């Protein structure tokens, strides 16, 4: 490999040719500040538009300052990252950015977690010159069910645009206008709700300021918990327990299931349940549907559509409803675990504890922003009352725990309540890419072959590649499985299916990188895949530790069918646990 020798701040540096100044400096312990730059290493996304100009450095012999994130090193370069010229320029540019940014840090949702704020602290900004005559670019704030866009706070780093277009290929956001009024927005500056946005939340996850934030339900939750007439219960998604600890400075990959349950109880939830229970239920419904379609297909039934696509990820559901609406008949009709839980809680469980539907409040803790939207969908309401009242993110939960003066570290490990808190290892692995399909295979295999499987660990289905495929031998029947995470990867897979290039029996798709562990509501991972891998390991560890690891063996699921639902895909199950999809393509208006 060809290397290049140069000097940065008097330090000799030798790096591979093609390295940027930023990385070369980092290799010798010099951290040049950056703002718009974003490196999502393993996702293969390096966003370096060279827009903020904070990372400029002085290169000897060069006319102007060089943005270190986007300038490659060359032999003999002499670089100064903190000359007076650089410091003055960096500070002046930041003052310029701040002069067009609201200064309501005290009440901003991103306060304390804002890259712009940190930069102002780092560079010691004390005043903004001529702020009194400085016009600010202002835009209407856009409230959607999941994401709030407050574009007055946008600094045009364009990270969200990259996530929405390059990585997710959703195309809801683009830079619009020109010059001072340029900003990132949906077409015609319409509400996000009217756009093709899937609420995957990846834009929120990378926004350096308070321009993109999640809809915050913590205040509503506090009010509900303090209402004596309401019974407030909670469900927690599998990925939450693998990441919540990070918000309390625990190592990534620390499992905090027991502490999380304890914290929720101390917050005042009447019952602390597990979405994993509903995940097991999902497997029963979805697995049965898979087997049904597969058997009919093998018998030569031409009306059967294969592959079957998983449907537990709401970002993914929104994506295919708007972008692959010609294929609405192939996803499974099974509702997501969040919604199955809500449906069961407000019928079966409400009856059990003799609480009226209206007085039972079901809250979910999700690694996801699209879940906030999912629970508002009309299909999931009975007489206007939603099955799940609202969803809060992992981040919101952590903030709530902190607000409530709960010392997370000293909490004891506690168990979920019964009956909706019992789950199997199969339910747990829903939280990572490949997990849903592995859980489905564990059940479908046994139901199809009527035999016990030797090992429940289908390693072929695990991994972090964006698109994976594997063939599982169902005793002579090769079942071909596809897996994708990230909507850009999903698009590739879908287009191959549409064109007939790929033949699969079943496909699992998750909108976010790594699956739910990398969801838009999780503690920010800043694209560091090492963190995602640790969360993934934690999920598989939890699976391994479970005494029961196949959904159909969950005793409380068996009981639920016996007492209430009958059998999978029964009429009652259909009504309560399945759904239908809507064509959300932009309709072209003409007469």
């Amino acid at each position, binding site marked *: 490999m060809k290397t290049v020798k140069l000097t940065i701040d008097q330090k000799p540096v030798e790096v591979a040719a093609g390295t940027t100044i930023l990385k070369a400096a980092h290799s010798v312990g010099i951290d040049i500040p950056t703002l718009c730059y974003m490196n999502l290493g393993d996702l293969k996304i390096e966003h370096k538009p060279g827009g903020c100009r904070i990372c*400029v450095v002085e290169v000897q012999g060069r006319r102007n300052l060089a943005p270190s994130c986007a300038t490659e090193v060359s032999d003999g370069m002499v670089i100064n990252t903190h000359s007076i010229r650089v410091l003055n320029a960096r500070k002046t540019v930041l003052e310029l950015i701040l002069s067009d940014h609201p200064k309501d840090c005290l009440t901003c949702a991103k306060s304390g977690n804002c890259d712009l704020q940190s930069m102002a602290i780092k560079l010691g900004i004390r005043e903004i010159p001529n702020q009194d005559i400085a016009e600010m670019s202002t835009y209407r704030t856009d409230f959607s069910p999941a994401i709030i866009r407050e574009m007055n706070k946008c600094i045009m780093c364009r990270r969200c645009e990259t996530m929405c277009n390059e990585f997710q290929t959703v195309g809801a956001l683009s830079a619009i206008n020109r010059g001072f009024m*340029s900003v990132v927005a949906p077409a015609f500056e319409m509400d996000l709700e009217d756009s093709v946005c899937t609420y995957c939340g990846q834009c929120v996850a990378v926004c350096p300021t308070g321009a993109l934030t999640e809809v915050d339900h913590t205040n509503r939750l506090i009010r509900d918990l303090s209402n004596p007439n309401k019974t407030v219960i909670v469900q927690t998604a599998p990925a939450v327990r693998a990441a919540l600890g990070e918000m309390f400075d625990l190592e990534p990959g620390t499992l905090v299931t027991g502490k999380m349950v304890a914290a929720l109880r101390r917050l005042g939830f009447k019952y602390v349940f597990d979405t994993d229970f509903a995940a097991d239920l999902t497997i029963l419904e979805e697995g049965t549907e898979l087997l049904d379609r597969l058997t009919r297909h093998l018998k030569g039934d031409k009306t059967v559509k294969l592959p079957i696509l998983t449907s537990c990820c709401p970002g993914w559901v929104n994506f295919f409803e708007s972008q692959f609406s010609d294929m609405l008949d192939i996803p499974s009709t099974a509702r997501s675990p969040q919604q199955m839980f809500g449906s069961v809680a407000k019928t079966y469980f409400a009856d059990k504890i003799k609480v009226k539907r209206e007085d039972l409040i079901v809250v979910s803790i999700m690694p996801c922003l699209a879940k906030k939207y999912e629970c508002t969908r009309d299909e999931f309401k009975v007489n206007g009352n939603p099955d799940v009242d609202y969803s809060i993110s992992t981040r919101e939960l952590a903030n709530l725990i902190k607000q409530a003066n709960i010392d997370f570290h000293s909490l004891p490990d506690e168990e979920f309540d019964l009956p909706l808190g019992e789950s199997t290892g199969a339910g747990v692995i829903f939280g990572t890419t490949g997990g849903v399909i592995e859980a489905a295979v564990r059940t479908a295999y046994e139901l199809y072959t009527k035999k016990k499987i030797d090992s429940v660990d289908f390693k072929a289905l695990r991994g972090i590649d964006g698109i994976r495929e594997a063939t599982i031998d169902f005793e002579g029947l090769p079942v071909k499985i596809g897996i994708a995470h990230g909507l850009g990867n999903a698009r590739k897979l879908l287009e191959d299916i549409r064109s007939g290039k790929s033949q699969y029996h079943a496909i699992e798709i998750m909108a976010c990188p790594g699956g739910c562990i990398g969801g838009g509501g999780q503690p920010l991972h800043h694209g560091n895949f090492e963190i995602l891998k640790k969360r993934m390991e934690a999920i598989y560890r939890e699976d391994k530790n479970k005494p029961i690891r196949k959904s159909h063996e969950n005793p409380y699921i068996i009981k639920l069918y016996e007492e209430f639902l009958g059998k999978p895909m029964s009429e009652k199950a259909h009504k309560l646990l399945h759904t239908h999809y809507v064509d959300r393509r932009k309709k072209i208006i003409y007469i």
Partner: protein
Amino acid sequence: MLESKIQILVCGGTGCSSKASHSITETIKNEIKAQGLTDIAEVVLTGCFGLCEMGPIVRVIHDDTYYAKVRPEDAREIVEEHLVKGKKVQRLLFRDPKTKEIVAGSKGINRYKKQVRIALRNCGVINPESINEYIARNGYEALGKVLTEMDPQQTIDVIKKSGLRGRGGGGFPTGIKWELTAASKSDKKFVVCNADEGDPGAFMDRSILEGDPHSVIEAMAICGYCTGADSGLVYIRAEYPLAIERLKIAIKQAREYGLLGKNIFGTDFSFDIELRYGAGAFVCGEETALIHSMEGKRGEPTMKPPFPSVAGYLGKPTTVNNVETFANVPPIILKGHEWFSSIGTEKSKGTKVFALAGKINNVGLIEVPMGITLREVIFEIGGGIKGGKKFKAVQTGGPSGGCLTEKHLDIPIDYDNLIAAGSMMGSGGMIVMDEDDCMVDMAKFFLEFTVDESCGKCAPCRVGNKRLFELLEKITQGNGIKEDIDRLINLGNVIKDTSLCGLGQSSPNPVLSMINNFYHEYESHVVDKKCHAGVCKALMVYQIVPENCVGCTACARACPVGAITGERKEVHVIDTKLCIKCGACMERCKFNAVIVN
């Protein structure tokens, strides 16, 4: 054959077109028909003659007669008298704007005297819609020579040795640019002609495309041969319909003649050209922005490297040159690099086309050898300042350039001298300002342009230029303080130092050079609160000179806000607090009693 006919050329440049040169052409044509002269005479609408102030211009080629300020109703007389009777129409003959004497032929036209026309060699001379006329003036000979006698490297060497540098602004050596693309390995390469002329006050590219489109086509093909490209694209402003039309016609003709297409001149070289339209974004003059725009995207620049010569249009190696640069290429090939490099200064060879505008007598396009002084351009070719006013400054390089003053008048104009003097060549706009122009107001004007045209991608340009503008506005409104000047300088330097592309890197030039050259003027705006040029309204104070006032009350009656008081036949007084500085009183006063300070 066309060439044997008597040709009457009507200037079709925008200046003349707006004054009905189209209908002049039509009426002359009808008149020729009516007189039965169609076999011996024809009329042609051509590109800009560069005599805009005297337009519309009609030129009769065979006896080199220039008619000025012609109106459609003069057509009959011209045909009857000049063509039939052989008598020139005296009252319409071109007169020297200064001496008012009749000028005989192009040699007599003063403003042509100091000019050397290479890029504009055919403008106003040939019918731009006739490939035959272009060919008759050695057109496509250079392409033939290159394809049949020279290899690409030899050709590149000629361009390199000629010293030709990019005429669009940057001044990058053209030969080296071609060599870089030639050295890039790729299955597909492109030649792009940048015709997105956006500098306000500059219209040289337009004139070349309207007056001599084939020269650009020929040069693009030569460039394609040198760099290994088989596709050419012209990125042209949609606001230039005539230039687009002419280019389309020229491309069609070149294809018909086998000068574009497959196996040109029987060689295995193939080349063709398509048009792409700009849509009104100044930043698209920057080559990476231009390429994104051609790809159907927002015209935002990206970091270089990679340079377009390595990864340009559709990621393929691309040579981007502007119109004027290309127009210089065929003569260099035909006459040799020695000829070209004998013109100009040590580091800037050849000529440059300038668009003279502003407070100058002879407005229009000129092509002069590099090394000519501003004094020669402004006072000899340009005929000096309008209305006998005093020269104050000249802005070169458009909104990216700087202003030059009295002390720069004798500097030989070339790329490096202009930069050393704090300005730049740019695409060749030259705006002359006189004593009535305020340097704070002018800086504000140029910044308003940049603020409008900034793409918004990088923070210093997006926000910084806006802040510069606001500071200047503060000063022109009389609210400036001395620190504001320092702030302007620091902000301007940081914007130059940190912006992503050429637009932001040069946008503070006008304000910085104006502060540099006219510091006292800025100072008097912020310290004395005075605008001596009398432009900044807020700084003006209307007063009545008691000695002149006769108390006629006309001013008081004219004042829309009742700021003037005084008894009849007594001296009136303006309440400066109420005064809105509309100037109505001054207009009304017959005794010169109202003055502005």
